[in-house]
């Protein structure tokens, strides 16, 4: 029986529930010493000197500074981030000196004894100050990247604003968010004394990103830069890019000391120094007819990228493309900018820009509905995009999607109408707790944006083993989401053997081809398809060789596979991604098929607000989504539930407190994530419309659930209290301020054409 769609046991379940799974900090080896990082404490400045204080046996300690770095860059896209600061400081967590020694206790004293003398320079800490560019901290104007999407004629549409078309304006903001995987970052580097070859192993999402960084920094080929993933205790995007920094640091210390070096961050260092979700602010101007048809969306989206460009331009492109949501709008203009500030670089976090721009859109939709006197679901229903219509980039929707039907279903499941009526009546009595219902309707693109998948040209391998089982070879990492399990299911089904007949290799750049990074909701749909193809090739080779005759059962396959390997020594196949011909993308003008497919969703939140404490609490949650075929029902639901919980945290609790570019609350005591007592029942419903290009019709799933909770919750707060939440997290302080200034929180409405052309205020 096929294991597709079955809740087979997770491949590494036994190891994880018995404590035998080996994470980086669980490993030790002969001669291993520890490494630590000395960081700047100033947001921006020039390094005048570094002094090594008294009382420390410095001759026993391996010390690495910028002078020891062969080519001082952490390779990624623009290569503007140094591995160690050399003369200039651009954020308050910038690595400056590395130390290694067998004693961690001594290292802590040594770290405190290093003094970095910095002449401070003016710094920039907000998106608005970055855009104003009175102080320039990056490039000519603090702008890492700017994109425009233009569809139709927004200016002409805005000129129609009059009695029958109104203009509704609003501004929304989202805060930084820490990924807070429970396993902090860590790496072990070993340098072979004879050849100088480096091997780095540890916690990561993208082995080949790290290999590229090692190769560039040390000027070596791939055979001298091996990267091995260990069991990884969560990533959520937080282990996409920063692990490259830690890997090169560990390798620098290992090279200089001649010993294996382990760097494991403690929680505070991980929270303060590594990447977080980009803070954002979005301005909306929406021209809409009195009967609720959107005429034009004019959107200005900006994200804070921190001190180096890292992944910001890619985050920006996804945020920009998702900014207009799942609606059919004739005229759309989106200006998107990623700007530099003197905070540690912000990076990937589940959703990758889309949660930010979708928060603004889905909040704004409720504001627009309120202005028009329409119910929020009705406004959306009148504007949903349908099959054959076009999204903001001009992409024609190929999916047979019916957002109207999904909305109906979500409303039925959540008893939307009855509850809204009931809560309105209860709230009118003026009790201390007000309840409300809110929803968000959205989409999430599967795989890399635009031509990304074409450029990646990912490869997956499969090989027959001597015992007759088949091993999948891919660099896609298991970080808790279930990669190993679904790859085994897909391969087993492609060959026609059992789930246990498939093994999934450890991602090790020596052994597995580059199947691309484990990001962008691409693992199941893009890489999974390649797994299916490579596995099918193994079967085809055996059939072509006459070793296997169809039809066959699992045992016959194992025997044929073992025989072939015995006789030929090797049975191996690879599959490389080829972009479907009907996908076209214009990178310059941001026109065309931004994604191969989208997942679609309607989320509903029931929220209670305590008017005495201003605390908002999610009481119930419904998550309905169309994600193509669900490969593993338990893992898939687990992805949605986990994403919703992170979305609830982002919406209500998770507040990064900034002090001069530094995270001031870098402790779990002070940075609050949802506990088991905080999450509501999360009711997950899948609508499965098979996607032609995905394995068994599967699309992407990992990021989607991050997009919907925050706007749905904020909209429920509006329903409960009449107060507009313009920024998240909506902590009690924010709700208090919003309620105190309730008069000024109304959306700005105009019935006259605004000034201005191709520029958003």
């Amino acid at each position, binding site marked *: 029986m096929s294991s597709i769609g079955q809740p087979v046991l997770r491949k590494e379940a036994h190891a994880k529930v018995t404590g035998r799974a080996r994470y980086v900090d669980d490993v030790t080896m002969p001669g291993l010493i520890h490494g630590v990082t000395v960081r700047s404490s100033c947001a921006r400045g020039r390094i005048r000197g570094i002094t090594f204080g008294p009382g420390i046996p410095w001759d026993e300690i391996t010390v690495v500074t910028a002078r020891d770095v062969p080519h001082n860059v952490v390779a990624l896209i623009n290569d503007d981030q140094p591995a160690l600061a050399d003369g200039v400081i651009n954020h308050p967590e910038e690595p400056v000196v590395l130390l290694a020694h067998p004693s961690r206790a001594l290292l802590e004293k040594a770290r405190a004894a290093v003094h970095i003398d910095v002449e401070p320079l003016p710094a920039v800490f907000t998106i608005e100050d970055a855009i104003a560019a009175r102080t320039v901290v990056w490039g000519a104007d603090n702008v890492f990247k700017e994109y425009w999407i233009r569809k139709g004629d927004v200016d002409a549409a805005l000129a129609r604003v009059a009695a029958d078309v109104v203009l509704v304006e609003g501004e929304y903001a989202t805060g930084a968010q820490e990924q807070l995987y*429970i396993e902090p970052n860590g790496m072990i580097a070993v340098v072979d004394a004879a050849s100088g070859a480096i091997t780095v192993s540890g916690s990561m999402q993208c082995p080949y990103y790290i290999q590229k960084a090692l190769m560039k920094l040390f000027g070596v080929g791939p055979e001298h830069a091996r990267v091995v993933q260990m069991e990884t205790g*969560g990533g959520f995007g937080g282990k996409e890019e920063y692990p490259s920094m830690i890997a090169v640091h560990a390798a620098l210390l290992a090279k200089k000391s001649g010993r294996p070096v382990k760097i494991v961050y403690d929680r505070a260092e991980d929270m303060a120094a590594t990447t977080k979700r980009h803070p954002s602010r979005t301005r909306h101007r929406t021209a809409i007819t009195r009967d609720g048809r959107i005429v034009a969306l004019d959107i200005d989206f900006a994200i804070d990228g921190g001190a180096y460009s890292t992944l910001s331009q890619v985050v920006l492109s996804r945020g920009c493309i998702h900014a207009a949501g799942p609606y059919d709008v004739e005229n759309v203009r989106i200006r998107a900018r990623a700007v530099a500030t003197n905070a540690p670089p912000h990076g990937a976090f589940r959703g990758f820009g889309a949660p930010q721009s979708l928060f603004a859109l889905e909040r704004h939709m409720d504001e627009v509905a309120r202005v028009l006197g329409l119910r929020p679901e009705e406004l959306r229903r009148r504007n949903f995009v349908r099959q054959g219509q076009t999204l903001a980039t001009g992409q024609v929707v190929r999916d047979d999607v019916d957002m109207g039907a999904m909305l109906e279903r979500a409303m039925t499941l959540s008893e939307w109408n009855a509850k809204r009526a009931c809560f309105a009546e209860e709230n009118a009595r003026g009790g201390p707790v007000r309840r409300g219902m809110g929803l968000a309707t959205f989409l999430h693109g599967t795989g890399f944006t635009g031509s990304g998948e074409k450029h990646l040209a990912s490869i997956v391998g499969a090989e027959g083993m001597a015992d007759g089982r088949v091993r999948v070879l891919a660099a896609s990492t298991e970080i808790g989401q279930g990669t190993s399990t679904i790859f085994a299911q897909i391969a087993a089904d492609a060959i026609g053997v059992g789930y246990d007949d498939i093994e999934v290799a450890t991602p090790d750049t020596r052994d597995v081809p580059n199947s691309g990074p484990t990001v962008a909701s691409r693992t199941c749909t893009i890489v999974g398809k390649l797994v299916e193809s490579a596995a099918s090739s193994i079967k085809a080779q055996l059939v072509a060789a006459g070793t296997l005759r169809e039809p066959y059962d699992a045992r016959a396959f194992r025997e044929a596979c073992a025989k072939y390997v015995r006789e030929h020594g090797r049975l191996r196949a690879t599959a490389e991604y080829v972009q479907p011909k009907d996908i076209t993308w214009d990178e310059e003008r941001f026109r065309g098929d931004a994604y191969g497919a989208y997942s679609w969703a309607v989320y509903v939140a029931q929220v209670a607000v305590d008017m005495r404490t201003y605390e908002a609490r999610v009481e119930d949650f419904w998550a309905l989504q169309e994600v193509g075929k669900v490969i593993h029902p338990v893992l898939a639901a687990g992805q949605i539930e986990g994403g919703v919980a992170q979305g609830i945290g982002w919406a209500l609790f998770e507040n990064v407190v900034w002090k001069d570019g530094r995270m001031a609350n870098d402790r779990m005591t002070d940075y609050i994530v949802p506990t088991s007592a905080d999450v509501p029942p999360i009711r997950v419903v899948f609508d499965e419309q098979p996607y032609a290009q995905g394995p068994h019709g599967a699309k992407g799933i990992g990021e989607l659930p991050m997009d919907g909770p925050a706007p749905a919750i904020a909209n429920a707060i509006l329903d409960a209290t009449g107060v507009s939440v313009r920024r998240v997290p909506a902590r009690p302080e924010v709700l208090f301020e919003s309620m105190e200034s309730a008069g000024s929180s109304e959306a700005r409405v105009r019935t006259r054409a605004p000034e201005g052309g191709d520029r958003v205020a």
Partner: protein
Amino acid sequence: MTVSRDVDIALRVNGEERTACVHPMRRLLDVLREDLALTGTKEGCGEGECGACAVLVDGKLVDSCLVPVAQVRGREVTTIEGLAKRDTLASIQQAFAELGGAQCGICTPGMILAARALLDRVPDPTESDVREALAGNICRCTGYTRIFESVLRAVQLERGAP
């Protein structure tokens, strides 16, 4: 350099007598992971907020990052390694494995021990009991839903349900 003040500390770990020659203020977490090579117990925050390092001391759930080893001298410590009998998973482990209670796995040892402590105290818990009992153990992957299901399933397994 400072003079070593290491002393022999005897304790029972997973039913076995063990002795560690360490500073009495050394964290139980480090003694388990480094001196006794029981790395199933994880460090998530080092300040008693996340529960990844939770173990049972005389059956009570504690965060081992907050406990100086001197405090457990002569006491019974249970870690994740002590739950399975040879290769047979304990029912709570079985339930977590089958129902998706473990995703990335790093919170799992502490979470399972927190569940064990609950079931020892309240053999037939409600979901609300489970929510309360696990509130000191942070999971960032699951949204807790499957963990609640796993704990409630373990109750059934312990009663001999199929």
